[in-house]
C-alpha cells in the first residue's frame, strides 16, 4: 500500500460550505476537442452495444420461433412413405381405368407429395362425379371416395365431326358422357328432346328434376309402360313451372304422343292414363294418336281415326 495509514482525526470537509456544494450541473463543464471525441466514442460504443444486444435478442427470438415451428412440424407430419395402395370406392359405375386416367400419381410418389386438393379437383372436373374425397391413410394408402350422378335420360347429340353421340342427362340436368354404364341400363333410358331456348340453344337443361320425377315414378310403378317410352320431348317445357302450358311429351311404342302437365300431379295423370289404356284395350285396341293428360279435370284422347274422346 502507498503511504502509511490514514491521518489521525480525518481531513474530509463535508457539510455546509464544502467544496462538494460547488458540484454544479453538467452544462457548466468546460469542453475540449479531446472530451468531445471521448464523448462521441462513448456514444458510438453505447450504440454499438445496443445494436449488438438487439441482434442477440433478435437471434434468440428467431431461434425460439424456428424451434417452435420445427416442433409443430414434427407433431403433424408422419414419416412420409411412398403411396403403395389406392383405395377407390364409388357409389356408381366408374371403373378403375377411369381413375387411373383421371388422377396423375407417378410411381414412387410419397404420401406427402400427393396433392390431395388437386386430386379432388381433378376428380370433380368429370361431370359424372357429383362429389369426391381424397384422404391419406397412413402409412401408405390413399383413399378416394366418389359419389356419382344418377342417369335420368339419354341425349343424342351431333359431334363436330357430324357423328351422333349419346350422352347422359342426370337428375340435376347435368349432361355427361356416361362412363361404365351397362348397355342394358342405357337402353332403358328414354331419349330427351331438349327445350329450345329463344336464342336457339338447347342448353342448359333447366327443371330436369321434375322430368326425372315423372320417369322415376313410371319406372317404379309401371315398369312395363316405362319400357315402351322412347323419347321425352321437352320442346314445350322450359323448366319454369310458373309459366303456363308447360308440358312434357312422351313418345312411346304404344301411343305416339302422351302429354303430361309438368305442374300437375303425376300420380293422378298416370292413373288416368292407365284408365284410358285399359278402356281402349276393352274397346278392341283402336289405334291412338295422342293422349293429352295436361287438361284440367279431364284427358283428351285422339284416335287415329280422327275421333277425339274425353275421359
Amino acid at each position, binding site marked *: 500500500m502507498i503511504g502509511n495509514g490514514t491521518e489521525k*482525526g480525518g*481531513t474530509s470537509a463535508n457539510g455546509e460550505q464544502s467544496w462538494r456544494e460547488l458540484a454544479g450541473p453538467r452544462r457548466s463543464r468546460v469542453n475540449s476537442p479531446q472530451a468531445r471525441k471521448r464523448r462521441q466514442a462513448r456514444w458510438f460504443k453505447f450504440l454499438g452495444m445496443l445494436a449488438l444486444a438487439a441482434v442477440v435478442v433478435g437471434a434468440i427470438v428467431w431461434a425460439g420461433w424456428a424451434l417452435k415451428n420445427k416442433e409443430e412440424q414434427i407433431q403433424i407430419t408422419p414419416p412420409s412413405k411412398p403411396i403403395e395402395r389406392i383405395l377407390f370406392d364409388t357409389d356408381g359405375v366408374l371403373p378403375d381405368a377411369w381413375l387411373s386416367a383421371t388422377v396423375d400419381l407417378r410411381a414412387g410418389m410419397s404420401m406427402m407429395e400427393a396433392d390431395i386438393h388437386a386430386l379432388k379437383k381433378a376428380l370433380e372436373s368429370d361431370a359424372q362425379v357429383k362429389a369426391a374425397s381424397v384422404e391419406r391413410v397412413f402409412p401408405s394408402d390413399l383413399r378416394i371416395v366418389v359419389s356419382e350422378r344418377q342417369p335420368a335420360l339419354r341425349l343424342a347429340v351431333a359431334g363436330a365431326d357430324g357423328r351422333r353421340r349419346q350422352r347422359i342427362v342426370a337428375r340435376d340436368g347435368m349432361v355427361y358422357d356416361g362412363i361404365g354404364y351397362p348397355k342394358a341400363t342405357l337402353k332403358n333410358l328414354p331419349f330427351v328432346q331438349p327445350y329450345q331456348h329463344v336464342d336457339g340453344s338447347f342448353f342448359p337443361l333447366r327443371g330436369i328434376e321434375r322430368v326425372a320425377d315423372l320417369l322415376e315414378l313410371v319406372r317404379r310403378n309401371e315398369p312395363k309402360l316405362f319400357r315402351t317410352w322412347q323419347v321425352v320431348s321437352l320442346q314445350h317445357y322450359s323448366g319454369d313451372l310458373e309459366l303456363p302450358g308447360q308440358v312434357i311429351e312422351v313418345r312411346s311404342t304404344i301411343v305416339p304422343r302422351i302429354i303430361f302437365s309438368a305442374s300437375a300431379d303425376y300420380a293422378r295423370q298416370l292413373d288416368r292414363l292407365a284408365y284410358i289404356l285399359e278402356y281402349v284395350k276393352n274397346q278392341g285396341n283402336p289405334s291412338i294418336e295422342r293422349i293429352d293428360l295436361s287438361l284440367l279435370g279431364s284427358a283428351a284422347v285422339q284416335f287415329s281415326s280422327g275421333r277425339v274422346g274425353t275421359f
Partner: protein
Amino acid sequence: MSQSRVVGAVEIGTSKVTVLLGEIIGDSGLNIIGHSSCFSKGIKKGVITDLNAASDCVHAAILTAEKNANTRIDEVYLAQTGSHLQGNFNVGTTNVGASDSVVSAADIEQAKEDAKRRKLMDSRTYIHHIQNPFSVDGQQVDHPLSKEGERLQVGYWSVHGDSQIVSDSLRVIRGIDLDVSDMIISSIASGAVLLEESEKDNGALVVDIGGGTTDFVLYRKGYIVLTGVVPVGGDHITNDLSIGLRVGRKSAEEFKLKNGRAYYQSEDRDEKVWLFGDLTIGDREYPLAAITKIIEARVSEIFDIIKEQLVEAELLVPADIASGVVLTGGTSRLAGIDEAARRSLGLEARQSEGPQDVALELRVPEYSTALGLLHYALTGQEDKQQSAKPTGIFRRLSSILNI
C-alpha cells in the same frame, strides 16, 4: 470476486499536469496501471487562468493515461493548490451531557460540529476540516469516548479556498464527463505518502516545491496542525536566472538543474561554469557565484515565508518537529536545497526518496502528490479509529441504549 474501480489521481500544477491511474481492488488492493503528464497551459501559480487551454491540457493528459492503461477512469481524486488556499484553526467545545460525566458519541459529535460551525464568506469554500486532538477538561486525549470529564474540546485546522477557483478546476474535470470523488490539497497528499507513521508522530514538515507554488504541511504528534501555500516555486528561480543571466527560460531551466545549487558558498566566487558545456555558438562561461546567489535568494525567500507562518502560528518548535523537513516536488531535485532548508528553518532537512512500494519511475518527487491522492482513494479521509459513529449492530445498539 472483489469489485475493482479505476481511480484517476489528477494534479493540475503550474508547470505540469500529472495523471496517475490506480486500480483499487476491494478495500485494500491498489495497482498503479497507468500514468501520464504534460506541460501545463492556462495555469499560473496553481490557479486556472484560461479554462479552455487548461481543459485541453488536462483532458489530453487524462486520455493519454487511459490509453496507456487501456481502461476508463471511474472517478477522479483531484489535488488543489494555489495561494488562494488559506487555513484557520477553530476549537469546538461541549459540556458532557451525561449525569455520570462520561463522554458519549453524541458529545463527540457535538464538539466536532461546534468546531466546524464557523461561517466563511460566500466566495470561500472549505476543502478540508482537519481534526486535531481532543481534550477532556484540558487533558489531551486521542480517544475521548467513555472518558470522564465535564468539558470536551476538539480543534480543527480548516482549509478553505476561493469558490470560483475551486469550481473552475471541478468544471475542467467534468468537461470530460468525470466526477471528482474527493479533493485534497497537494501538501497533505504528498505528506501522506512521504512520511512514516512514526515521523508524523514525532513531528515533520513536508515542503512540496512545485513550479509556481510551494505547499507545506506540518505534522505534530501525528496530526496535521498547519498547512500553507507560498506563491513562489521553481519557475520563479528559473525566471530569475533567465533575467539575471540573459538567457532563455529553457536554457535557464537546464542551467539550474545542471549547475545550480540552492545556497551560496564562498568557493563559488572562483569557479566558473559553461552555459551549455558543448562549446557551441552562444555557449559562454558564468561565475558560479552569480548563479548560486540568484537561486539562494529565491529559495531563501520560500523557506523564510514558511518560517514566518510557522512562527506566527507558534509552531516552529524544533522539539515538536523532530523528524525534520522533508522536501518534495520538482524543485526539490535542486542540489543543496536540503542545506538551504536547514539554514533557513533551523531544522534537519532531507530530500524525499519517494515511497518504496511503487515502480522506480514513479519514485520521484514529481509524483508524490498524485501518489498521495491514490493513497486517499484507497483509505479515505475519515479516521476510522476515531470515528464517533459506532459500527456493527451490537455497538450501535449499545450506543442507542447508552450502555
